[in-house]
């Protein structure tokens, strides 16, 4: 019984990180109808940026978050204005944007290889080994910090989307860009902002990931996949959908230790995805549009 509780706590902590990781992908998809295949690459790049800030300027990863958010918001705006903007909207653009952003991912990976080689990097903070004892288990303190940051970020985002004029405009564009133009919303500007925001969120996920895992330039592929599984599981409806999707995935992965060998935990998410898509094509909670 004790073991189950420990695993459950572990899963909840993991779910926080997963939710933060998935939201950037979900936001961009919800508003622009584009799957940001560079998502994993952005997470990886942000982990490297965090590591460099820590290594060269001794900036703590958690204090580096504002810097990383600003930097990656800028990068996202750059990718949108430089590349994504030129793609046709709608169905014709969907596959093109996929390949285009996949190309961006490859380029980011190559830059990371050139700059930092393929070796694994780890961030050794002074508190990396401190742990918290709770419910009969011992958990790394960092995991709680990551969880807290993720929850704060999600709440902030939720407030932005539901309580501000800008958020209202974003949700309106997600529903019907044409009517928004009529209502005087600058749709293109909303697209730029959303792409920047989604990229900044991927950047945040990269900071959090860099404190939890070792990373190399190939890092990010399974993060992309998991983010995707989560938005499919939870639908793009709300913060609650994302949180639920993240919880389902985290619990499935953590409790899979009883059923499959450890190297297959990555495959768990995929199997879950297929099962859900077969049984409930609309996602577990069935909402498709960011509202």
């Amino acid at each position: 019984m004790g073991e189950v509780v420990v695993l459950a706590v572990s899963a909840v902590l993991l779910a926080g990180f997963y939710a933060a990781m998935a939201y950037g992908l979900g936001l961009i998809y919800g508003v622009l109808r584009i799957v940001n295949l560079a998502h994993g690459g952005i997470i990886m790049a942000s982990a490297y940026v965090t590591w460099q800030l820590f290594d060269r300027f001794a900036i703590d990863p958690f204090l580096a978050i504002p810097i990383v958010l600003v930097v990656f918001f800028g990068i996202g705006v750059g990718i949108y204005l430089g590349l994504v903007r030129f793609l046709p909207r709608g169905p014709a653009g969907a596959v093109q944007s996929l390949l285009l952003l996949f190309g961006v991912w490859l380029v980011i990976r190559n830059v990371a290889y050139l700059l930092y080689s393929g070796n694994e990097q780890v961030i050794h903070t002074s508190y990396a080994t401190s742990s918290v004892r709770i419910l009969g288990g011992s958990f790394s303190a960092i995991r709680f910090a990551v969880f807290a940051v993720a929850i704060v970020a999600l709440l902030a985002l939720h407030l932005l989307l539901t309580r501000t004029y800008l958020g209202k405009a974003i949700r309106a564009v997600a529903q019907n860009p044409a009517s928004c133009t009529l209502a005087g919303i600058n749709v293109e500007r909303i697209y730029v902002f959303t792409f920047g925001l989604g990229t900044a969120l991927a950047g945040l996920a990269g900071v959090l990931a860099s404190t939890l895992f070792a990373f190399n330039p190939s890092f990010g592929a399974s993060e992309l996949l998991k983010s995707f599984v989560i938005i499919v599981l939870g639908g793009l409806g709300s913060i609650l959908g994302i949180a639920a999707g993240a919880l389902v995935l985290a619990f499935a992965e953590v409790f899979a230790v009883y059923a499959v060998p450890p190297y297959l935990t990555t495959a768990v998410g995929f199997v879950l995805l297929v099962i859900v898509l077969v049984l409930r094509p609309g996602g577990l909670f069935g909402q498709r549009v960011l509202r």
Partner: protein
Amino acid sequence: MSRLRFLLAFGAALVALWIAPLVLPLGDYTHNVVGLTFMFMAVALAWNWLGGYVGQISFGHAAMFGVGGFVAARIMLSSGLPFSAAWLLGGLAAGLFGVLWGHPTLRLRGPYFSIATIGVGEATRLVATYWSGFTGGSSGLSLPLAGNPTKYQLYWYGLYLLGAAVLISYGLARSRIGLGLSAIKEDVEAAGDAGVNPTLYQDVVLFLSGTMVGICGGFYASYQAFIDPQDMFSFDRSIGLILMAAIGGIGTVLGPVWGAVVFVIIQEFLLATFSELYLGLYGALLILIILFEPLGLTGLVQRLRRLPRRPAIPVTASGTAITADRRTP
């Protein structure tokens, strides 16, 4: 191109390529590379049946390549069957494996399907790497020399594979099935209403595509005489397929053939000197193609052909062969 003209051109090209090494002084190296290029052409065409004709971009075709290669290698190692039978059985295994994962995932459209295939590819690679009883794990499998064709002979087998792939490409594109596939690509629900069964059509195309890719995996195993899971199932292999098709023109009938030529040239000549730049090069190529000429070389040729007669027609969204349904699950 009328059917007769196509068949004549096809026959002439086949004969010319068949006798070319007998009359032309190609070095050993060129001869072998051309043989391997034939295989890449066949794989790229097979990818295009699903990625181009149906518009379902697969990032996981390496899975079928690997399954085909390893099943063929196992059969060659454990039984006295001739290598061609081993390739075919490997191909069938790969095709069935394709349908196994494709049947549930092909109901997804566009980006959703693509990301699911990344999962398929990764999961297959993981299982293959750890299932050392079958794949030899990280140390791989060496094929027996006896009964295995030499690289010199493989040139012609590569040519046969390419010939088969070209015929199927043409046949699929110009037949009733091809019309059904474009209907599915444009609008799944409308296609269903018009009496095209999207599930059946897509399963059949994935089976064909997987079988061809699997047979090519067997060919590759014979060519290398040694295979390991990390190479056969690698994500880079799937990327290569997409790139070949994208360079030549996704959705065009024969574009991937030319894409494969460019791909092999890049790989053999440029990357030998700049090996640390290959991902970036692939990425940059993909970006440039999508931004400037979504139909790749084929689009470029079409554009050049149009020039003398009338002012160039800009390639717009509706003019591209790449479309996908916005609808998601």
